[in-house]
């Protein structure tokens, strides 16, 4: 068991100017499940490979526990890359499939059997130990692969998009299994994914990266409720947060036809560099449909209604100007009561629920207030 520390760790690929990972500072607690998440090319996999010893570290250091492993060979780091290879051997028993790496390392037979039995108990595979992989279901085979890593008793588990290769159903199942298993084992785990839903559902904490730079690290709740900047606000959450930049007059942002009073702390945080503008964000579920003319209400022209049974979403455009959209779309998204849905072409009035506006500097994108 161990902590993991990235201490201003930097990776610059030869022939490139911008670091792939730029001065990453990240401390992962003993037993913690940390998810590195971000879009393609953000540096998440590079960070993981730096920890694994598969990428050179050009600046800073990486520590496992108190030990500086920056220049230590991968196999001497006491880590396990899980799911890298999970082809099971058809003629070997499940126990041998789990323990063969220990056999190669010359571990005594009795100890191998003991470690395999312990792992099997945790993985619910005890009754299958002496059978062939053929007797297992797809999910059980995944667990045998996990068992291979567990019996080695490494200090840290590393997983790089382990579910990308599975079909959708098995992906959701395995996601839950990995998360609960990790909690039972209590082994420090660093997990890389591009999927923010996976990150939110699995991690104790999430670290969001963009363009090689750590944007924010925190619990799923913190990331969702208090994104540190516009990037995190737009990346975390599905459907994505509505974000737009608006003129500010007398401490009020002009959103569509509405004047929205900004918090004191937000208004005070606006600097001349912002040019009298502020970036606001609010999640689809932070909006209430109200009768037209209500105070602080702005109007949305409905272009599409998506009914999902327990939920319904309006996709539309902000009336009376202003660029407001969710994620990569050019639409505003509003969660509405599924029993009371407007028609396509209607106009609805919405207000933002109290305390659910996120405000960011128009110049820097950093959170205000």
């Amino acid at each position, binding site marked *: 068991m161990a902590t993991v520390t990235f201490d201003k760790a930097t990776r610059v*690929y030869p022939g490139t100017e911008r670091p792939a990972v730029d001065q990453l500072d990240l401390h992962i607690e003993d037993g913690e499940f940390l998810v590195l998440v971000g879009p393609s090319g953000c540096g998440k996999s590079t960070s993981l490979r730096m920890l694994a010893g598969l990428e050179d570290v050009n600046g800073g250091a990486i520590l496992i526990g108190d030990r500086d492993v920056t220049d230590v060979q991968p196999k001497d780091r006491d880590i396990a890359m899980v799911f890298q*290879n999970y082809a099971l051997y058809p003629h070997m028993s499940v126990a041998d499939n789990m323990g063969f790496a220990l056999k190669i390392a010359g571990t005594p037979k009795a100890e191998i059997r003991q470690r395999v039995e312990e792992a099997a108990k945790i993985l619910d595979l005890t009754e299958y130990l002496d059978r062939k992989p053929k007797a297992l279901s797809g999910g059980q085979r995944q667990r045998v692969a996990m068992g291979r890593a567990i019996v080695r008793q490494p200090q840290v588990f590393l997983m790089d998009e382990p579910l990308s290769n599975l079909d959708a159903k098995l992906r959701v199942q395995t996601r839950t299994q990995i998360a609960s298993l990790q909690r039972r084992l209590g082994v420090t785990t660093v997990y890389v994914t591009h999927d923010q839903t996976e990150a939110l559902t699995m991690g104790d904490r999430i670290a969001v990266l963009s363009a090689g730079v750590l944007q924010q690290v925190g619990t799923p709740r913190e990331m969702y409720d208090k994104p540190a900047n516009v990037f995190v606000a737009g990346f975390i959450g599905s459907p994505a947060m509505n974000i737009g930049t608006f003129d500010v007059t007398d401490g009020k942002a002009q959103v569509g036809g509405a004047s929205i009073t900004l918090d004191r702390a937000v208004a005070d945080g606006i600097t001349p560099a912002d040019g009298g503008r502020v970036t606001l964000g609010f999640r689809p579920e932070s909006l209430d449909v109200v009768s037209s003319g209500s105070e602080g209400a702005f109007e949305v022209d409905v272009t599409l209604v998506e009914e999902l049974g327990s939920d319904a979403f309006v996709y539309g455009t902000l009336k009376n100007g202003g660029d407001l959209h969710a994620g990569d779309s050019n639409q505003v998204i509003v969660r509405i009561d599924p029993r009371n849905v407007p028609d396509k072409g209607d106009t609805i009035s919405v207000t933002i629920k109290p305390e659910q506006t996120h405000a960011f500097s128009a110049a820097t994108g950093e959170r205000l207030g």
Partner: protein
Amino acid sequence: MTHNLQITAARPDPALLDLPWDTPLISWPDDVLAALPRGISRHVVRFVRLSGRVLAIKEIGESVAYREYELLRRLNRLDVPSVVPVGVITGRRDANGERLEAVLVTEHLQFSLPYRALFSQSLRPDTATRLIDALAVLLVRLHLVGFYWGDVSLSNTLFRRDAETFSAYLVDAETGDLHRELTPGQRNYDIDLARTNIIGELMDLAAGEMLDEEVDEVGIGDALVERYNELWEALTGAEYFVADDRWRVDAHIERLNRLGFDVGELEMTTDIDGTTVRIQPKVVDAGHHSNRLFRLTGLDVQENQARRLLNDLDSYAAATGRQNDSEQLVAHDWLRKVFEPTVNAVPRDLRRKLEPAQIFHEVLDHRWFISERAGRDIPLPEAVASYVEDVLRHRPDEKSLLGLPPGERPSEDDPESDYFHLST
């Protein structure tokens, strides 16, 4: 319902559209299949015959499929021995409109042998060692171009006979990555994983009683590491010598040539007073002998086959007293008078058994063997006839040694049977 079907390929073959894409690969009818694969795979794989070629089709996640397709294309451009990608097919739906997995299509490598096929035939006992040697060469070549494999194993490799040895080809690039240059950490991890996987695969063969009891699984895994390190050091390591020993430069290059590599760039530095010289290869390219043979004769064969053919070409030049003639002209005559007649003497129906260059190599071996027994020099035509009747006729067809014929599904008792219908 295939209206959303999308085929991404450099040269799409319209015949691809005729395959039953609205059916999951595991349920493809026998009449479209060329064979079922043998060996360990995480995915469903099937072979089909299309427009005169054999294609391997693998069901795999869409993003992974595109990634692997692109990587294989780049490896091919870098001239690394690997399978040739044909394309990616996405947007598959079944009759009920349910989405089906994307597929990656690659061309089956003719005359290639999966390691399991080699072990299930009775071969010389050092087969495992020769496979490991081939894999070490492949791994070094991949590492030289900056390819990190991430899952080196015998299952992810195909082998082709190459004179008395084998050459290895990369089949599965799913976990791979191309870098400008690999770090020692990446190389060491690849080798370590290769060792573990190979030992695991051999232990599996042993558990299935397909491996001679004498074979030392761990010893073979260790041999890979050793062979790799030797070759890597020879190809990339520096040599120091006193400035007067200039012949050492040529000797160094020749040593690499003997290993089958050409030196594209050699860095030479001296210390301040010029007494010590340091040389280190900066760019080395595989295929020293095969490139030379190709230039001389247009024959495109593997490295050790080329070595054998070049030796025979030298003997031909000596025997005909033409060592001082233009090498090109002699090579042309050798091709016309020796190589082609020998290969053409093999009846057409037996040519699917081995590649022409391999047949030529084996005929030379056979001639040596029967000449010794007869106590006289057996002429080549006579040797070919004897080889065809006594040897080749009894060999299996290796041109498309794919696996099980579609009609012969493995019995349920076979521990490997589920690998034909279950992914993961």
